[in-house]
């Protein structure tokens, strides 16, 4: 166990080299619908109970199933209205359980990235072979079903091991949504020669946090989204920022919530002169090609580059 993950170096927000998004846009904006499957009777991981009540815990289970039967279609309609392509945080088993949803996403050219196999199977206590099997399953299953090579990862239910990010780099992932340390991408310190970056996922404006943790009203959520955007737009004039809206149709798709959300999305996408409405993969690709080296050089110039890689502060094997 370590007191510091050492996955990235300290990089003060002041006086960073400028990021300019394509078309001189100031904010790279992406939306991440979490399209998830939660099992009715999942096996138990000793580190975390899947459900609060004894199985079957039908209240939260059926609420999430509602997301796949009802909420998803409502959210997708709103995203279509404002021509926003989703970058899907996918429970990979959804490819099997709800191919009708996958087809609708493929038709719209939405991006898929892996969010584990089920959101009721946690990474805690996995050995390396087991964790590799999950990544290999994710890459192959999404490729077989959609033809897409996934390049991003958000660990299932935000559960990790110390080796998760090293493995992502080894398997050719470009970005991880697992770290919430910044509003700009940053190179991650991983083993091997492959590049992996941290993609801002804006966890604080995730609807799970808004509703499940902060217990906000839908209109307050919409207001927060617009203020969050206004601030990142203002700062984006100095150096390009990233805003993500992580969503769950089983929450935001309810009829008392989707209307205010729609107004927030209308507001944000009405600034297209300044906003690159895109996907996480396109942000990662552009950043790695144009700003990755610049970021590393600036961190080094400030004397902030520490040795080693994640959970391996001395370096070496």
């Amino acid at each position, binding site marked *: 166990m370590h007191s510091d993950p050492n996955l990235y170096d300290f990089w003060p927000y002041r006086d960073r080299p400028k990021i300019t998004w394509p078309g001189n846009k100031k904010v790279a904006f992406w939306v991440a619908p979490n399209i998830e499957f939660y099992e009715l009777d999942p096996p138990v991981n000793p580190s975390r109970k899947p459900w609060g009540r004894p199985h079957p815990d039908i209240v939260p289970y059926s609420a999430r199933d509602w997301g796949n039967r009802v909420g998803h279609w409502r959210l997708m309609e709103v995203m279509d209205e404002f021509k926003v392509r989703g970058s899907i945080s996918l429970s990979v088993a959804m490819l099997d*359980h*709800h191919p009708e949803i996958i087809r609708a996403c493929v038709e719209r050219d939405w991006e898929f990235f892996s969010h584990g196999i089920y959101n009721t199977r946690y990474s805690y206590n996995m050995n390396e072979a087991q964790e590799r099997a999950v990544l290999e399953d994710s890459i192959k299953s999404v490729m077989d079903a959609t033809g897409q090579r996934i390049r991003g990862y958000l660990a299932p239910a935000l559960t990790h091991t110390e080796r998760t990010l090293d493995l992502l780099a080894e398997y050719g992932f470009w970005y991880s949504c697992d770290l919430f340390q910044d509003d700009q991408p940053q190179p991650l310190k991983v083993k091997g020669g492959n590049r992996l970056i941290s993609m801002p996922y804006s966890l604080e404006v995730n609807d799970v946090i808004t509703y499940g943790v902060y217990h906000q*009203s839908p209109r307050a959520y919409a207001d927060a989204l617009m203020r969050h955007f206004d601030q990142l737009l203002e700062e984006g004039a100095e150096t390009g920022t990233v805003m993500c809206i992580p969503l769950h149709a089983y929450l935001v798709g309810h009829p008392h919530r989707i209307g205010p959300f729609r107004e927030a999305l209308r507001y944000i996408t009405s600034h297209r002169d300044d906003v690159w409405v895109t996907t996480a993969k396109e942000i990662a690709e552009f950043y790695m090609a144009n700003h990755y080296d610049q970021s590393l050089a600036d961190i080094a110039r400030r004397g902030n580059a520490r040795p080693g890689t994640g959970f391996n502060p001395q370096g070496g094997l």
Partner: protein
Amino acid sequence: MSILPDSYFTYAKRHAGPDHDHYPASPIIDRAPITLPGGSSLGLWVVVPLEFFPLNPSGQPFKAPGAMQTPYPDLRHYTTRDYGNRVGAYRLLKLFGKLGLRATFAVQGAVADRYPELVRDVLSDGHDICAHGWDTDSLHHSGLSAEVEDGYITRTLDTIQTACGYRPDGWLSPARAEGFATPARLAANGINWFADWAHDDLPTRFRTEAGDLAALPLSNELDDWQILINYTRPEHEWAAQVADAADWLLDEAGRFNSLRLLTLTVRPYVSGLPYRVKALGDSLKGVLDRARAAGVTPRDLTRALPA
């Protein structure tokens, strides 16, 4: 070192549809349109639980929402809940009478046993009733034997029938908790519809080993407990959310040319308080005043069930 067995990485139910056999996948946008006699587009279904919270709950296998919280004897929570059955419920009955709204009261067996007059008053005011289990400490879960769970169900139905002469064919489980066998045991004991699951916005057919049930939609996200108690939002924010939901659903009903439902659970000990009941009344009136909005009953909803 891993302590996860290989079985953690086998996925026996990774196939098309849900990971159970009660209903198939069915995206709502592909459903056949539902229409009600009278042609309303937005159905308002209001469910009022009449619950008994024992002063000495076992809390097994978990403590029901609203159950006693302080050390025994928790007179504070016992009496605030009892207030609901003595005062709050009558305040709601008066409100519904004024609005001309026919609601569904979910009655626990222990309430029918203790306060049969209340159950009779609900019926004589023209409302529907369904069974709501025995009490909030008689929770349905997979640890119950068939004998015990059947006993909870039949004792509840028998007691309600004794109190008011009517044997319910609808069911809401206490705390909406079920064991794996609960739906089949409900069907085997004469229940035709239940509202425990919140997997859909419209009525769906729910298969069990003892025959089909009608699963009526009942939201957990917009009710008085979720918004006022769990989320601690003020009443005006709740009213705004109900209004926003009604607007959205009516618009959707028009676009899909099909009924949409606004379902709302209101608890007498929550919404029946003096400072809340007017907000509830204004909110319900606001929904019902919309063109093509009307109250619906379980009978309307079970008749709308797709074949």
